[in-house]
C-alpha cells in the first residue's frame, strides 16, 4: 500500500469516525433533552427538529457512503429513526409544521430540475423519450392495473366492491404507479454529479413524466368516475380545471423564468435570498390560483436555462443550497413515513411495489429496444424510474379528495408502496450510475461542498 493510499484510508477512517461520534452526540443531546423535559411542546421543537435532521442527515450520509448507499437513503433513514416511530425527536406535529420548509425545498428542486433540462440535451433523445413515454403510459398502466385487480381481494377497501368499481380504482392505481420522483433523481445528481447517456436519459424522462402523469391522473379521475359512481358522468369540469392548471402554471413559469433571467443578468447578487423569497411567495400565490408549483418552477428553470445565458448562474445558486435542501426534504419525508401502516399493509404493498419494479423494467426494455437506445440506457434505464416520493403522494391526495368513499384506504396503500419505492429507488439508481461508470463525470459546480472523504477515497478506488 502506498503512502498516499494509506493516508487516504486513514483520513477516510477518521472522517467516518468523527461522523459516527457526531451522530452519537446529536442523538444523545436530543434524547436527553426530550427525556428531561417530556412535556415541552412549542415552536422551538421545530427549530431543534430542523437542526437535528440537518446535522444527523449529513453525518449519516457520510456513513452510508462507506457501504455504497446513496445520501438520500441516509436522509430518509434519519427521518425514520428520529421520527415519531422510533426516537420521537421529531413528533408528528413538528413534522406537519415543517411543511413550509418542504414547500421551499420543492420549489428549489423543481427550479434546478428545469434548469438541468437543456434543449440540446433533449433533442437527440426526443424519439427515445416519446417511445418510452408511450410504452410506459400504455403498457405500464395496463399491467399495473391488472396487478392491482389481482391483489384487490386482499384489500379492505376493494374486497366488497363490484368488479366495475374495483376496475375504476385499479385504473387510478395504474396511472399513479407510473409516476416517478424528480426530487430523488435530482438528489442523486447532487451527490454523484453524473454525466453520460444514462443520466441524461434519466433526467429528461423523469422531469417530463411529471407533466405526463399529472395529466394522465386527472384524465383517469375524470374517466373512471362513471365506473365508480354510476350516477355521475364524465366530469368535464375536471378536465377544464386541469387545462387551466397546466396552462396557467406554464405561463406563470415562463414569466417567472424571464424575471429571474433578467435579475441574474442585471444584478445576480444575493441570489439565495431571492430564491427564498420566490420560493415562499410564489408558492403561496400558486396555491391561491390552484396552479402547480412543481410545473411552474420547472418551467421557470427551463426558461432561464434555455432562453437566456444565465442558466449556469442559477444552477450554481440552487446547487449551493442543494446539500441543505435535500437533507431536510428527504429527512422530513422519512419522518413522515407511516411505518405502522406499512407494517399492516406490507404483504400487499410489497407485492405491488415488486410488480411495479418488474413492469417498469419490462416496459423500459421494450421501449428501449424500439427506440434503439444506447446499450447503457437499455441495460440500466429502468433504475431511475423506481423512486417515488412527493409527487405521487400529492396526486394520491387529489384522488382521495375526488373519491372520499375509498380514497383514505387507497391513499394509505399508496403511502405504503411509496415508502418502499422511496427507500429502494435511490439505491438502485446509484447502483446503475456506479456500474455504468457515469458517477462523477459531470460538472462539479460545488465540488468544494463534497466532504473530504470523497477526495480521500479517490486513491483507494
Amino acid at each position, binding site marked *: 500500500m502506498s503512502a498516499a493510499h494509506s493516508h487516504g484510508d486513514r483520513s477516510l477512517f*477518521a*472522517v467516518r469516525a*468523527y*461522523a459516527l*461520534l*457526531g451522530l452519537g*452526540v*446529536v442523538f444523545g*443531546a*436530543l434524547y436527553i*433533552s*426530550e*427525556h*428531561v*423535559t*417530556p*412535556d*415541552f411542546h412549542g*415552536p*422551538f*421543537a*421545530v*427549530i*431543534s*427538529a*430542523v*437542526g*437535528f*435532521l*440537518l*446535522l*444527523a442527515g*449529513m*453525518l449519516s450520509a*457520510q456513513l452510508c457512503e462507506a457501504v455504497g448507499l446513496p445520501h438520500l437513503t441516509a436522509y430518509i433513514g434519519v427521518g425514520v429513526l428520529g421520527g415519531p416511530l422510533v426516537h420521537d425527536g421529531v413528533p408528528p406535529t413538528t413534522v406537519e409544521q415543517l411543511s413550509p420548509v418542504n414547500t421551499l425545498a420543492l420549489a428549489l428542486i423543481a427550479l434546478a430540475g428545469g434548469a438541468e433540462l437543456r434543449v440540446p440535451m433533449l433533442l437527440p433523445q426526443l424519439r427515445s423519450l416519446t417511445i418510452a413515454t408511450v410504452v410506459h403510459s400504455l403498457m405500464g398502466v395496463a399491467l399495473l392495473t391488472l396487478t392491482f385487480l389481482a391483489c384487490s381481494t386482499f384489500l379492505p377497501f376493494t374486497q366488497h366492491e363490484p368488479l366495475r368499481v374495483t376496475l375504476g380504482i385499479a385504473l387510478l392505481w395504474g396511472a399513479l404507479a407510473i409516476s416517478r420522483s424528480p426530487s430523488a433523481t435530482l438528489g442523486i445528481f447532487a451527490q454523484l454529479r453524473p454525466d453520460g447517456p444514462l443520466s441524461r436519459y434519466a433526467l429528461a424522462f423523469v422531469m417530463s413524466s411529471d407533466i405526463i402523469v399529472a395529466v394522465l391522473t386527472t384524465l383517469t379521475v375524470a374517466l373512471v368516475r362513471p365506473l365508480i359512481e354510476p350516477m355521475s358522468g364524465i366530469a368535464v369540469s375536471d378536465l377544464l380545471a386541469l387545462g387551466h392548471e397546466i396552462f396557467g402554471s406554464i405561463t406563470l413559469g415562463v414569466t417567472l423564468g424571464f424575471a429571474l433571467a433578467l435579475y441574474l443578468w442585471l444584478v445576480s*447578487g*444575493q441570489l439565495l*435570498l*431571492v430564491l*427564498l*423569497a420566490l420560493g*415562499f*411567495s410564489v408558492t*403561496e400565490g400558486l396555491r391561491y390560483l390552484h396552479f402547480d408549483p412543481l410545473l411552474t418552477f420547472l418551467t421557470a428553470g427551463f426558461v432561464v436555462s434555455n432562453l437566456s445565458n444565465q442558466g449556469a448562474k442559477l444552477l450554481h445558486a440552487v446547487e449551493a443550497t442543494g*446539500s*441543505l435542501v435535500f*437533507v431536510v426534504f428527504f429527512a422530513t419525508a422519512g419522518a413522515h413515513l407511516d411505518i405502522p401502516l406499512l407494517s399492516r399493509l406490507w404483504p400487499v404493498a410489497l407485492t405491488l411495489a415488486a410488480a411495479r419494479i418488474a413492469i417498469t423494467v419490462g416496459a423500459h426494455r421494450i421501449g428501449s429496444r424500439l427506440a434503439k437506445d444506447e446499450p447503457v440506457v437499455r441495460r440500466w434505464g429502468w433504475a431511475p424510474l423506481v423512486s417515488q416520493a412527493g409527487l405521487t403522494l400529492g396526486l394520491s391526495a387529489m384522488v382521495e379528495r375526488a373519491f372520499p368513499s375509498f380514497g383514505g384506504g387507497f391513499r394509505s396503500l399508496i403511502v405504503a408502496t411509496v415508502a418502499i419505492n422511496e427507500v429502494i429507488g435511490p439505491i438502485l439508481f446509484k447502483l446503475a450510475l456506479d456500474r455504468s461508470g457515469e458517477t462523477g463525470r459531470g460538472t462539479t459546480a460545488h465540488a*468544494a*461542498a*463534497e*466532504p*473530504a*472523504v470523497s*477526495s480521500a477515497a479517490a486513491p483507494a478506488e
Partner: protein
Amino acid sequence: MDEMTLLLVLLVVSYFGNALIVPGQAAAISLPSGSQFILLGFVLGPHVLGVVPSDAAASFMPLAMAAISWLSLVLGTSYGYAGDRRLLAPAFVRGFSVALLSAALIAAAVFAAAYWVAGASVRDAQLMALGIGLAGCETTRQSARWVLDRGIAPTRLLTLLEELAVTDEVVPLLGLSCFFALAPPPVTLVSISHGGWFLLTLLLGAVLGLTSALLVSGFSAAEAAWGVLLGAALLGTGIAWRLSLSPLTTLFVMGVCLSLGSRHAAELRPLLARTGPGVLLPALLLTGALLRLPYDEGHLYVSFAAVVVRIAARVLLGRGLAQATRAEPQQRWPFGFAMCCTGSVSVLVGLSFALYFPGPVGDVVLSTAVINGVLGDVLGIIGMRQTFLARSGGEAREPLAASAS
C-alpha cells in the same frame, strides 16, 4: 400585514442588509448600532402605523430567537480577534473588567429605581437590574469600524476602543446564562441546582462547538461546513430553549469552542461574519415591531435611571482608560462618550429577555436597551468625532502594550 408578507419584508430587509452592508464597513449602515432599523420596525409595528400587527410579529418569535442565536455564534467565532489579530490576556481582562463594572453600576441603579421608586417586587427589580445591566455594559464592535471606515489612521486610543469592543461582550452573553439559570427552571424529571443549569449551558455550547469543529475538519473546504454549522446552531438553539437555558450563551460558547478547535477557524470567521448583516437587520426590524415602550410611570423612572447611570459610568470609565493610555487630555472626555456606543449585542440581549419574559419586565429591559442604543449612537458618534476625526492627523497605530500577538 399577514405572516407571509412580513416574512417577505424581512427577506427584503435581509437582502438589503447583505447587499448594502459589507462586513466591516459600518459607513453603509450610518449608525453604529443599526438603530434606524429598530425605529423602522417600531414605526411599522402595532403602536404606530400598525402595518405589522403584534400577533404576526409574535409568531416570528422562534425565528427571531434562531436569528439572534446565530449572530451570537458569529460573535463567538470571532471573539477575542481584532480583525486577524488575536488579543492577549491583558486585553481580555480590561474588556471584562470594564463591562462587569458597567453592568454592576447600571444594575445597582436600576434595582434602586425599580424597588424604591417604582415599587416593583424584589424579584422584578432583580430581573430588571440584571437584564438592563447586562444589556447596557458593552461597546459595539462597529464603533471602531465606524472610525476606520472614515479613513482615520488607527491610533492607540482607537486600538483600545477596538479591543474593548471585541472582548467585553463576554459579560452580557455569559451573564445571560446566569440570569436564565436564576429564572424558574423548566419542568424536568431531574433536579438541577442553579449552578448546574449555568454549567449545563456552557457544556451544551462546548459540546456542540467541539463536535462541529471535529466535523468541519472532515470537509475539504470551510464553505462545505454550512450544513453542519446551521444544523448544530439550530439544534443548540432548540435544545437550549427547551431546557430554559440561554440560547445566546450556548451559541456564543459554541462559537468560541469552534474557533479554538477547528483547523478551518481562520476561513470560518470571515465566512460567518458575512452572514451577520443579513441576519441582524431583520432581527432589529422585528425587535422594533415587538417593542413596547414603558407605559408605567415607575418603569419610565427605571429606564431613566439606567440611561443616566450608563452614560455616567461609560464616560467616567472611558476617561480613566484614556488617561491610563496617556491619551492627549482633550481626547479623554470625548473618548468616554465614544464608549457609550452600544450595539447589536445589547439589543439582542434585550430581545432575548423580552422573549423569555413577555410582560412588563421584558418590555422595560428591551425598551431600555433600545433607548441606550439610540442615545449611544448619538453620544458615541459625537465622542468619536471629537476623539478621532477632529485629530485625524494624529498618532500612528501603536498596539497597546502586551495586548496583541
